[in-house]
């Protein structure tokens, strides 16, 4: 993590000292990305200043969101946490065992086909999952749990779990598969069974890759808008740990109100504040993920 603007330019210059045009092109492209990332953070920060001035910290603690009067983001923040957490809890065991099986047990040709299907599913856009969720999952969950209505936080969590499963699965599998075969051969030489090899040797070796896969999945789950919007019920309230009631996440709130708020003072600023909150949540998550990666690499 020895990144700094100075380093960036120094390495750029050293790479391009011999005037390789392509090197400059690469550097330029990289700069574009950096400008976007930093620019986005600054934009969100600047745009959300008015609402923080107006509401102070009440913006994050307030439970009441009524356009034109008060803006309290807690219901959306809480909903995002609950829904993403649920998706992770549901996905982790399935993704891990699925990845282990695909990587360690399947024959190479069969593995390639399974991988193809996973990668295909990982590219399906959110709206498709959303429509499936509306037509099947909401009614299914309503009947299965005998609920008043099927548009709940639980439904959204399940839908997100289904959505991010292929991504997490295929990336975790990549991580497992990239463990050098010498490890497996050595383990076999010591007389370990296949399961013991997979569990005690291969899995610990690929923990950081699996953490990376989970991070990408969580990032997608946290940011998913349309699929969640269609099944969550879109009611702003802090529901405690009751999963079987309607709620709201940050992206679903943004999706519902962004068009109305476009360029309209405090409402727009409040939505930008929500965007900033989500940005920070993902950033904190990424930092923790990286710390975990470093820790597990040692």
């Amino acid at each position, binding site marked *: 993590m020895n990144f700094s603007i100075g380093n960036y330019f120094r390495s750029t210059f050293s790479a391009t000292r011999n005037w390789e045009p392509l090197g400059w092109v690469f550097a330029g492209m990289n700069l574009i990305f950096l400008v976007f990332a930093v620019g986005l953070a600054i934009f969100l920060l600047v745009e959300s200043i008015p609402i923080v001035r107006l509401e102070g910290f009440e913006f994050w603690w307030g439970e009441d969101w009524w356009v034109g009067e008060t803006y309290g983001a807690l219901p959306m923040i809480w909903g995002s946490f609950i829904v993403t957490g649920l998706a992770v809890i549901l996905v982790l065991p399935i993704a891990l065992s699925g990845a282990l099986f695909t990587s360690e047990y399947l024959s190479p040709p069969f593995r390639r086909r399974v991988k193809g299907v996973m990668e295909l599913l990982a590219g399906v856009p959110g709206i498709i999952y959303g429509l499936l969720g509306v037509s099947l999952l909401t009614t299914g969950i309503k009947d299965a749990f005998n609920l008043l*209505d*099927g548009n709940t936080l639980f439904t959204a969590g399940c839908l997100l779990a289904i959505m991010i499963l292929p991504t997490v699965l295929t990336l975790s599998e990549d991580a497992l598969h990239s463990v050098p075969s010498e490890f497996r051969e050595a383990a076999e030489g010591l007389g370990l069974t296949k399961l013991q090899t997979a569990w005690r040797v291969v899995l610990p070796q690929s923990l950081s890759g699996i953490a990376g896969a989970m991070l990408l999945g969580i990032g997608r789950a946290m940011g998913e808008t349309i699929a969640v919007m269609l099944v969550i019920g*879109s009611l702003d309230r802090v529901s405690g740990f009751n999963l079987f009631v309607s709620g709201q996440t940050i992206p679903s709130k943004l999706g519902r109100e962004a068009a109305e708020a476009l360029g309209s003072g405090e409402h727009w600023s409040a939505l930008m504040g929500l965007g900033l909150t989500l940005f920070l949540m993902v950033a904190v998550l990424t930092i923790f993920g990286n710390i975990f990666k470093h820790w597990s690499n040692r």
Partner: protein
Amino acid sequence: MVRYKRAWAGLVLGLMLGFPPETFADTGLRIQVVGSTTVLPVASRSAQRFMQSSKARILVNAGGSGVGIHSVAQGHADIGMASREISPNEKIRFEKSDLRTHSVGLDGVACMVSSEVYQAGVRQLTRREIAGIYMGKIRNWKEVGGPDREIVVIDKERHRGTRHVFMQYIFGNALQRTPGTLLVTGSNNEEQAKIAQSDSAIGMLSFAWMNEQVKAVSLQDQGKEFLPTWEAVQQGQYPIVRKLNFITAGEPKRDIKAFIDFVKGPDGQKIVKESGYIPIGGKD
């Protein structure tokens, strides 16, 4: 750099070929229509018909009345669709935009319930009962003569035109807060689907969205009963009626004017009727 020249030339040429010339065409020929999902069927069908005899390209997008009014006031769209009038607040905020309203049809808003509730005997509700349900004081259908089932109270996004006129009638306040709400929906299609999926839902929708699974109840107010029918709207008896509006910033010109005149004209008014609304008598 010389050997890259060809590549650059190729890239630029490729980009130019990649975009058909219409992409850069005069913006005057493209009309953006945005807003109410209630007005949308009228606008999109009219646009299709209108484009058969005109060079103008019309793009119709949903978003809700609030979005329609905001978009046109801020110049993101040429015509805003709204299923309500411009609110006093919006009039003050967008004073500079000089918004003009062009009515193209009439519509009634009904209190809709799931067909299961309707079959079980809930055919009419009083204003007070509906208010009680939305305020969370009445929570079970049996309290208003229905089956012993909890009520799934469906509200609409705050800026939706349908919500404005409905809440105005029920509470006398278009922006009434409704603590009894269980679900919040956006477009009419979304709300229709949620009412249909549930077996104990209540909601608000235009007459045009009634179907086998989504039934309109009649309204009772001070001893009088108002049936949710087109005849009642036409005779001026039904209480929740609103105009379907096109909104422009300033007086419309050229193609925009031609399109609005088309919708107001005989062909357009036929489409209004086909879409499930009531035509308006020539002038607004």
